[in-house]
């Protein structure tokens, strides 16, 4: 199918983008790798597309005060090639090859993935696992939102109707940081049936501060807090038993299958976390 008609405006500044969002049913166009697909299928029919691709200063990867900051318009492919991401945000480095395919990663943006908040997407779960932050700018200025307060529901975030996500931040990894990532998809690059993004701190031969964020098992990324505690005590089997996810059936798998797969992924990810 083809998109329904819409108006189009290339924003020349962040302020202009915020101002244009006043229009009813206006949408931001960043990488467009989800938005244009929904336009083509007429699942969405905005009145106005505000193209922010030309805005300067919204891409780039920097390290500031112990955190890695990634501009919203950073393309997945750009992050995939980044030494800073590889060394200081290794969970994101592990997740990115699972996002779509090369042609998708050349266009799709990290900010777009977070703002779209697909429940089966990789990056929202990474941000939750890493206890990351989101910067947004709106009519009242700039604010920072913790990842745990950002993902509100199915494709629903804490962003206001006139707010633009400008950057995400995660703590820079040090020598004690451990990360793990695994997902199951029918085809490499497709949305996950179930996935798991995890981080922890090495503590002697064991782990502490384990954070497990599952995706594809609910309307938002979900922490498995009981399993985190069990894994920190070193017992992988107990951690799998302690999983208290309640995935619903969807087009890809039944909730029961997803629960089983979540356990299988935990075993793989625990192994990654325990490897130095």
């Amino acid at each position, binding site marked *: *199918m083809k998109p329904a008609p*819409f108006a*189009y405006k290339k924003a020349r500044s962040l302020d202009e983008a915020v101002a244009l969002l006043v229009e009813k049913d206006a949408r931001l*166009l960043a990488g467009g790798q989800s938005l244009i*697909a929904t336009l083509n299928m007429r699942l969405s029919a905005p009145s106005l597309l505000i193209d922010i691709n030309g805005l300067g200063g919204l891409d780039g990867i920097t390290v500031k005060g112990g955190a890695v900051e990634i501009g919203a318009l950073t393309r997945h492919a750009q992050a995939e090639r980044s030494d800073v991401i590889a060394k200081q945000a290794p969970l994101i480095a592990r997740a990115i090859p699972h996002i779509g395919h090369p042609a998708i990663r050349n266009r799709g943006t990290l900010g777009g993935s977070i703002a779209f908040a697909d429940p089966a997407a990789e990056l929202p779960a990474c941000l939750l696992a890493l206890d990351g932050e989101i910067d947004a700018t709106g009519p009242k200025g700039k604010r920072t939102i913790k990842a745990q307060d950002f993902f509100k529901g199915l494709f629903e975030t804490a962003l206001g109707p006139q707010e633009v996500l400008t950057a995400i931040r995660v703590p820079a990894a040090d020598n004690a940081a451990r990360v793990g990532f695994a997902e199951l998809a029918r085809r490499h690059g497709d949305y996950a049936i179930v996935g798991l993004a995890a981080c922890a701190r090495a503590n002697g031969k064991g782990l502490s501060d384990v954070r497990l964020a599952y995706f594809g098992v609910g309307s938002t990324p979900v922490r498995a807090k009981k399993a985190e505690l069990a894994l920190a005590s070193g017992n992988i089997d107990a951690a799998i038993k302690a999983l208290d996810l309640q995935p619903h059936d969807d087009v890809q798998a039944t909730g029961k299958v997803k629960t089983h797969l979540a356990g299988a992924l935990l075993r793989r990810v625990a192994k990654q976390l325990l490897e130095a």
Partner: protein
Amino acid sequence: MTDSAFDISLTVNGERVRERVDARKTLVDFLREDLALTGSHVGCEHGVCGACTVRVNGEIVRGCLMLAVQCDGAKVETIEGMSDSGEVADLQAAFEQRNALQCGYCTPGMIAAAQDLLRRGGVPSRDEIREHLSGNYCRCTGYHAIIDAVEAVAQARAGGR
């Protein structure tokens, strides 16, 4: 303040093009309908099948997931351009020799994606080839012949240096 039709100016396969396009027109529809470059195919129209793969500013993209209006000022290359320049002649020959196509619908996208991998240099493993082509559906061949063809070209190019 806003409009829904735009004058765009871009380079397509080395030629300067100026056209007026509706904002809602995708890049692949623009190439096919306005420029009669029908080598880029329209399959799923939502970014899953890869039949519309083209290069924009040197990087492969989904022609169905970019708007023509976004390509103002861009350098676009389609299978016609890659074919005419001889850049993918060896891939095309290998696809033919190894039965890596039957109906041919996916082939322009496959060749564009394969060339994107091979022009990075080196000889990728079969797994790397599979991964790079994972966003391109083929409903005829079962993929093995395609991987064979891409691998053979990678080896030939490496040996030829």
